[in-house]
């Protein structure tokens, strides 16, 4: 099948698309989940998952914690500070890379200022 739900004349789970360069989450930006994206807990797999029309991303605990803090209010720096209150070791660069990847795939929107 075409990967993708509505992938063309055959409606199946969607194609993999190369990421388009989108706004990057810099320390002062305030990321939030895009409107078409849902963060939920999957009791079957006992993991948090990020759902879009065509994709399911199974998250680890840290990933879920980061996205849970993406409320459009907190800055990336604020999210890192919050995580440091919960976890022993938090690498700011890793958080930024994670959010960059999700911004590129338009799962996360990045507001500035």
């Amino acid at each position, binding site marked *: 099948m075409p990967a993708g*739900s*509505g*992938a*063309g*004349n*055959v409606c*199946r789970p969607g194609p993999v698309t190369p990421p*388009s360069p989108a706004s990057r989450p810099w320390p002062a930006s305030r990321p939030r989940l895009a409107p078409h994206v849902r963060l939920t807990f999957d009791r079957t797999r006992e993991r948090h998952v990020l759902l879009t029309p065509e994709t399911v991303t199974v998250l680890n605990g840290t990933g879920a914690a980061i996205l849970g803090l993406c409320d459009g209010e907190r800055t990336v720096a604020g999210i890192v500070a919050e995580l440091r209150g919960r976890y022993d070791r938090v690498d700011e660069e890793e958080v930024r890379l994670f959010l960059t990847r999700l911004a590129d795939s338009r799962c996360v929107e990045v507001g500035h200022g």
Partner: protein
Amino acid sequence: MDRPFALLAELTYRCPLHCPYCSNPLNLDGYTDELTTGEWLRVLAEGRDLGVLQLHLSGGEPLLRRDLAEIVSAASGLGLYTNLITSALGLSARRAGQLRDAGLDHVQISVQADEAVLSDRLAGTPSFERKLAAARLVKKLGWPLTLNVVLHRHNLDRIEAILGLAESLGADRIELANTQYYGWAWRNRGALLPRRDQLDRAEAVVRAARDRLAGRMEIIYVLPDYYGRYPKPCMGGWGRRALTVAPNGDVLPCPTAHDLPLPRASVREHSVDWIWTSSAVFQRFRGTDWMAEPCRSCDRRETDFGGCRCQAFQLTGDAARTDPVCHLSPDHAIVAGAVRAANEAAETERLPQGPALVPRPQPRPG
């Protein structure tokens, strides 16, 4: 064993459109004994227990099911992400409001071209203006909007205007998918298969549009596998990530697998869990043990899974062979021949429309 992420619910094969590239099966009349509302709700609950997280509601035209909002509401209650794939005919303000209240997450609307004359001719019915009105309604209600456009010889040259239409409607995503040749599209292949120069131009337009619209609109472009070197990764692996439930309750690893010579598995006789885990149809091409050469020793066997089983069956009569689209397939000449014919015919005939298109009919209850 992997658990499925997505369930494609083909609620009905009835459809107000008659698109000649429809991938629904040719024997539409065999699917008129549709699952009841209660049966669908059971399927969704069993699917969720099995691990399904995304529900794609499709068909045919899912809006022709009067119980659509009830099905969406139940799915939403189960925590499924719900995606409606529709022609938009029948998406009135009242109906849209009901679906919004029921918790529908996302809407994908098909358009056939960038303007009414060609779009209506391809759809076989006046529909273009109603689709635009429905797309505007979707945006007004705050839903994310995806436009689905199936590409072929008759509309590939319009791709720039199609992207312009998507932009003017404020679409969040557009799926530009070259036709895959199953069902009615298979019957119409000779009239649909594009020329190489059309594809080259279209790809350049898509590249430029991706740069221009980055961050505003996601553009998904599904390549035509007949022109590729390698096949598409069939369903991300047979019986690995997704399942399809046909209108009559047949469960399939792929929406085009109706005609494969495999035993049927129906939700009217078995649970979704049993079908996924134990049925012959789901076991047959799972993993890589079933593969023959050249797939068996190929580095890409876990990347493209031997390509499409339905296409292998359609082109060679043996569903276990390498997808002939692959340039390594011993049957690749079949695909190369079809591509050559599409390009040669274009040069000699220069017909504006090429061979006649057979419209997909309505299913008739037996």
